[in-house]
């Protein structure tokens, strides 16, 4: 989905608030929220793709205003409710207040049947796919051309894995893009490397 989470290349954001020595956590509830979601993953209640997608499904204003660990907590609660482990009513009764959850999921999809095995040096283009559910193709590479640099071990296909859809694990490729191809005349000069699933790519020339 073209969600609010997909921030790469968005403009209008201000200076980075650099805090070199800040601790990873600022309050006990943050450590606990982080541990509870990790626990649910370890218990097999949900997987990392489901977890990421439930964050992406947060209402955009909630997503932007929430802190990092509030997003973790919202995803955790959403998935526990969707998996039937708890009900929203129980959580709200226990919390004595509203417990905002993420919106319902769109459909997932399985591997692209025409995908092909690639090798380092191959020129590729990212397919111009618009996927309603979870997808790990950042929008800034959609339709863009790059070069395969290397291959990573196969991973579960996120578009399926976040939705309980059957699919084969897929190789991912380190694809190198030039920033001037991604944002012509509108980016600092750099090489941008993105890990791209095989289903998102097609070979060119």
């Amino acid at each position: 989905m073209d969600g609010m989470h997909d921030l790469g290349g968005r403009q209008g954001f201000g200076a980075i608030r650099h805090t070199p020595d800040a601790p990873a956590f600022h309050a006990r509830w943050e450590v606990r929220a982080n541990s509870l979601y990790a626990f649910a993953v370890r218990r097999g209640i949900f997987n990392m793709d489901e977890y990421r997608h439930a964050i992406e499904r947060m209402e955009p204003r909630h997503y932007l205003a929430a802190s990092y660990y509030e997003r973790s907590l919202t995803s955790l609660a959403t998935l526990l409710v969707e998996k039937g482990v708890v009900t929203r009513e129980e959580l709200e009764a226990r919390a004595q207040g509203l417990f905002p959850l993420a919106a319902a999921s769109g459909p997932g999809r399985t591997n692209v049947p025409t995908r092909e095995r690639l090798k380092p040096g191959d020129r590729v283009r990212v397919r111009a796919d618009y996927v309603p559910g979870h997808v790990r193709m950042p929008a800034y590479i959609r339709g863009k051309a790059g070069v395969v640099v290397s291959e990573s071990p196969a991973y579960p296909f996120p578009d399926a894995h976040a939705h309980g859809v059957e699919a084969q694990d897929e190789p991912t490729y380190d694809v190198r893009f030039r920033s001037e191809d991604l944002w012509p005349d509108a980016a600092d000069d750099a090489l941008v490397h993105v890990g791209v699933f095989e289903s998102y790519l097609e070979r060119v020339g």
Partner: protein
Amino acid sequence: MPDHEFVIQRVAPLERRVDAIQAALDDRGLNATQAVEELSQLAEEQWVPRNGARVVAKAWVDPAFRERLLANGHAAVTELGLPMPKHHRHLVVLENTPTVQNVICCTQCSCTAFTIIGLPPDWYKDLEYRARVVRESRTVLKELGLDLPSEVEIRVWDTTTDTRYMVLPVQPPETIGWPEEKLVDIVTRDGMIGVARL
């Protein structure tokens, strides 16, 4: 009309929302409280940048290790007894040189090799860094205090799969010959993210 029919429901404070989930899971016999204690200890005491600093220092003093690290990061950090979660199947170590600066990010969430370089700092997870670093890399690095000469090539790595990255910084020339234990102390989290040179 009696007032009690109009109960204004407010969003529960975050702490109470966490309490609610933990208690609900405990009630179902899942022992969430015990798991929280164990995982919090890991997050706060084991998943720290010092792990990555050990990896970097060893790579600086041990050329054979450096070669193994660059060829297969996951296997090399495992040699040092450093764990990675099951879903992180690959660790790619990105070697900086005087003319190449690698910098890592995650534009869609905040993925990092957290067991190796530590849990990510706030600024790495903030909307500003995620939105800007892929497109305005040189400007962002300059804002963070790293003003690179124009001949230095910048390579940005967006963590979109469960392959993880860490940057191998250039060893400061004045530290050549130092013992490994002393080198560990000069390696920073920012250096392993790639927004600083040491």
